[in-house]
């Protein structure tokens, strides 16, 4: 991508990051504190995003959809435009929890087309990777807690629906308590996973240069994060509970385990 085009896209991604912050605050505090600010930043970001696309088109002399990064940038821009149009028509605040983080990550990845310089030091390289691993492990722990609580929710829900209390009814916590635990651990897990994905993307970008995105392990990571985002959205916006939410949570947990397996050799980099 053209240098200036990437700079405009980075500005747009920075503005979109306010949307991510809004989504995080909505999940953790369960209140939409920053929506107006994030929406404003989203709109402004879309202007810079458009400038980036136009700049790239003029530079390349064709519609900038010729490689993965250009296509991703265009796709993110279209999502932004469609969301803004839909929001002004239908007031879809709840959808922002899904759209804002998605657009931010898409724009962030799209900015990583031009290779940057190599690591300034090995310490920085290893510290960055360690930070990513710690974040992702904390995220897995929170996700495991979410999955465990979801399964207990299923058992307790079944007891209550059956109307014939057995052992689980007396031993398990109330549905409300489990639901609260699921929401909180899922939100914390999502925040940690998102930060881990950002840390991992930038690390892989510097480490592998342009080839980073072609790695299957990276694709698996983004897919897992995407399903986690969908889970978070379905729970917060659509109010998914019980069986459907439990199945989805266990699926995300399974994908996370797969992602872990795909990255199992990463730890060897940290060996002295």
């Amino acid at each position, binding site marked *: 991508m053209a240098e200036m085009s990437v700079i405009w896209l980075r500005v747009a991604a920075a503005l979109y990051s306010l949307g991510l912050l809004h989504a995080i605050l909505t999940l953790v505090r369960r209140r939409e504190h920053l929506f107006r600010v994030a929406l404003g930043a989203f709109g402004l970001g879309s202007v810079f995003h458009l400038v980036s696309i136009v700049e790239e088109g003029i530079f390349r002399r064709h519609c900038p959809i010729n490689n993965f990064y250009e296509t991703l940038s265009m796709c993110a821009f279209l999502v932004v435009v469609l969301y803004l149009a839909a929001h002004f028509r239908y007031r879809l605040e709840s959808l922002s929890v899904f759209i804002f983080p998605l657009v931010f990550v898409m724009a962030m990845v799209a900015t990583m087309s031009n290779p940057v310089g190599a690591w300034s030091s090995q310490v920085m390289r290893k510290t960055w990777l360690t930070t990513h691993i710690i974040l992702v492990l904390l995220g897995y722990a929170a996700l495991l807690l979410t999955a465990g609580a979801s399964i207990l929710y299923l058992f307790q829900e079944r007891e*209550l629906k059956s*109307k*014939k*209390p057995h052992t689980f009814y007396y031993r398990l916590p*109330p*549905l*409300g*308590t489990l639901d609260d635990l699921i929401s909180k651990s899922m939100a914390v897990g999502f925040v940690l996973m998102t930060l881990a994905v950002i840390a991992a993307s930038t690390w892989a970008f510097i480490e592998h240069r342009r080839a980073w995105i072609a790695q299957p392990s990276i694709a698996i990571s983004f897919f897992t994060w995407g399903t986690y985002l969908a889970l978070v959205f379905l729970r917060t916006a*659509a*109010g998914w509970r019980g069986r459907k939410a439990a199945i989805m949570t266990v699926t995300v947990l399974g994908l996370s385990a797969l992602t872990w397996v795909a990255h199992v050799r990463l730890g060897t980099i940290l060996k002295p």
Partner: protein
Amino acid sequence: MKLLVTGVSHKTAPVEVRERLAFREDALAGSLADLKGREGVSEALILSTCNRVEITVTTEDSTDPQAVVDAFLAERKSVDPRAIAPHLYHVEGRDAIHHLFRVASSLDSMVVGEPQILGQLKAAYCAAKAAGTVCGWLETLLARTFRVAKRVRSETGIGLMAVSVSYAAVELARKIFGSLAGRTIMIVGAGKMSELAARHLRRSGASHVFVTNRTYERAVEMAALFQGTPVEYGRFVGMLPEADIVITSSGAPEYVLHKEDMQRAIAARRNRPMFVIDIAVPRNVEPSVNQIDNVFLYDIDDLQEVVNANLRERMKEAEHAERLVAEEVDRTMARLKVAEVAPLIVGLQEQLEQIRAGEMARVRHKFGPFTPQQEEALESLTRGIVNKIAHGPISELRNHAGQPEGAHVIDVIRKAFHLQD
């Protein structure tokens, strides 16, 4: 000293007998003073509740406690001892301790695990304490009884499950929502049962009540009871999304809430759970409502089934509680036996110290005076010898206290050391 517990309970006597023997609260102090004043009675306690009248006394060994209590009841309550004898139970010693522990732990109650009995026993203790009729051994035993009851309540789930239909509804609501704080109730049909259920839910933290009824004035009346909001009957279905708990008890001959109504309500609530309590007969809510995700529908039979399951669970917990009580009785008996041999141990130590002091005086007289260092060495030497001699018999006394062969061992040691009874 003897310990006797005697009385009548719901298990042994009909209410006609229990009410004749009951003690009014204002007459309790006088009755306790009367009982304590009788010959041979050391301490007295009277427990009088709607399900039991029970007298606990400690007396001197020479006194027949049952005869004393029979005479007391005959005089105080003007009852023929022969007439009430078939209904009276009386337990002594270890059995009395076991009985007290079971009563306090609510294992002997009409509804096993109910919490009131412990409060009633504590009130009886306070009355006896105020009257000065418990002040020693019985007071220690009662303190232990309260500890045992507390242990049973905390280590078993005997009091956790609701055993009435209205409390079962509250318990289910808690199982669904966790805390009821801030929850909204909608009452459909302003009947007595729904009022009672709503009252329990409100007391448990539910914050707002909507009331709807075909006769709007009745809805206004009931809403006023809960500082709630009356809702016109034609509008209540539209307000369902605001309600976490719906109680229906209208006299309508057909369903007033259908599956489609609840599907719309739960969608509007974005799947936040709803608890629907249908206590009407014929039922007000279409049974298929329970098939909707996040809607929990209970009719009157379902609630009764929960109560039955809770009772079965309580009985399981009661078995565990019985084991705890038996263990506590054994422990108490062992402590009592050790306490029994305590005077003998003190006597033995005093006897040996007396011999040591005498021998020291004799040596001082014959070989003294000694220097302070010599005095110290002799004191240390003789005390060491005495302690070593005493160690064996004291250990034996402690080990055999409460054992079947204990009396023989105690007797042998008493004779060997010429100790007084």
